[in-house]
């Protein structure tokens, strides 16, 4: 089993509030894992601990065997291998779509402007936005911005992609275009961890679904098992509200 992420007894406190209370899990290469759970359950915090956007209070995360929270770890290097897509897109508003995508490949990977541009236009083609290459983020719809954000993350050719509620800030009619890009990515064999409220999507693309509540993994399993045959009362209760 080629494990890419290993989470050991991960805990996170915000002051007195214990958001994560000891999470253990493991994610394999090419696996698509969806994380579901009620708001405030710690899903996003869990995801943000995976690339060190949040520091763990205790426990550790190993990505390809490298400890994320060790003081000597080169986080910049580690993060260049892990793409992340945010709920609020977080495109750089002062840069064009092209410059948003090429910034990191040229500065971090040392690509030439031409190479980076070729890569950017190939990726924009893939997410269906080739004609927007010179647009600025504020000229794009939410769904288009999120697809650019995905292309921007992919331009670093990451080995893992993290998605933090990628469709939660979108108008309903734009959710589909983003999900179909993500689905195509999953089919290509990308290792993905997705925090989502889209249960239908989770069922469709996930290899495994993790249900988190109150900072703990309550239940995990294949989408069929978790959605159709939940073992825990809390899981059933949550699913009855959202399905």
């Amino acid at each position, binding site marked *: 089993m080629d494990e890419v992420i290993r989470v050991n007894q991960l805990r996170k406190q915000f002051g007195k509030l214990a958001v994560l209370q000891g999470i253990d899990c493991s994610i394999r290469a090419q696996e698509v894992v969806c994380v579901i759970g009620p708001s405030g359950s710690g899903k996003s915090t869990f995801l943000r601990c995976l*690339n060190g*956007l949040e520091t763990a209070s205790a426990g550790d995360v190993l990505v390809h065997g490298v400890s994320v929270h060790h*003081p000597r770890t080169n986080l910049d*290097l580690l*993060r260049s291998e892990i793409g992340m897509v945010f709920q609020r897109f977080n495109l750089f508003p*002062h840069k064009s779509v092209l410059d948003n995508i090429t910034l990191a490949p040229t500065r971090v990977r040392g690509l030439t402007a031409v190479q980076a541009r070729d890569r950017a236009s190939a990726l924009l083609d893939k997410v269906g936005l080739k004609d927007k290459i010179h647009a600025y983020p504020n000229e794009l719809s939410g769904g288009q911005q999120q697809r650019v954000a995905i292309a921007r993350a992919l331009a670093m050719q990451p080995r893992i992609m993290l998605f933090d509620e990628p469709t939660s800030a979108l108008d309903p009619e734009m959710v589909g275009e983003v999900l179909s890009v993500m689905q195509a990515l999953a089919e290509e064999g990308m290792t993905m961890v997705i925090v989502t409220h889209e249960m239908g999507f989770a069922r469709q693309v996930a290899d495994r679904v993790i249900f988190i509540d109150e900072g703990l993994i309550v239940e995990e399993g294949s989408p069929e098992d978790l959605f159709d045959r939940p073992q825990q009362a809390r899981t059933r209760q949550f699913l009855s509200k959202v399905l």
Partner: protein
Amino acid sequence: MEPNLWFGWFRADIIAKYAELFWRGLQVALAVTLICIVQGTALGLAIGMARLAEARHAPARQLCKYVLRWPSTIFVSFFRGTPLFVQILLMHFAVLPLFINPVDGFFIDGETARSLKQNYGAFLSGVVALTLNAGAYISEIFRAGIQSIDKGQIEASSSLGLSFRRTMFHVILPQAFRRMLPPLGDNAISLLKDSSLISAIGLAELAYAARTVAGAYSRYWEPYLTISLMY
């Protein structure tokens, strides 16, 4: 020279006679202002960043707090919390003589110190005091500008593997700078006006020129109206 009256009361001839003095004064005021804008902006950027310095792990974490954040906060509080006039006097009569003194200067002493103090003393202490003061105000502009940028921008940039330095220079500062331009402009204007305070320690800039002329003729409207217009 015959008194040349404008509107029946304004002695334009006085101004004409001392035009050279006013012109030199203006040059000095502009020189002080320009030097202080450049140095103050560099200092302000450094101090603004120091006030925001944070690190994840010991010992850098403690280092940031005690070596960067605390001293810079004290610096800013002092220079924003005390009158610029007092700072200039303090700089000229207390601090600078410590460093440049014919008898026992830390940096420069002997004859060099004597002539330096005589010829450039007021200019030097004025520029240093005004630079430190401007640095304190500008650091707050930088800090506010940087903090006004959505945290998601830093997160997005660092999640792409960009280092903190690159995140600052390619993502945060370009956006912050646009928001900082109006307050930076305001700051430059007040710097020019504040440079008049340096006349108190004898720097021959605009306000000093006006005082000289006023003293010579016991006429006050003409010189001070003139420099007001020039400012």
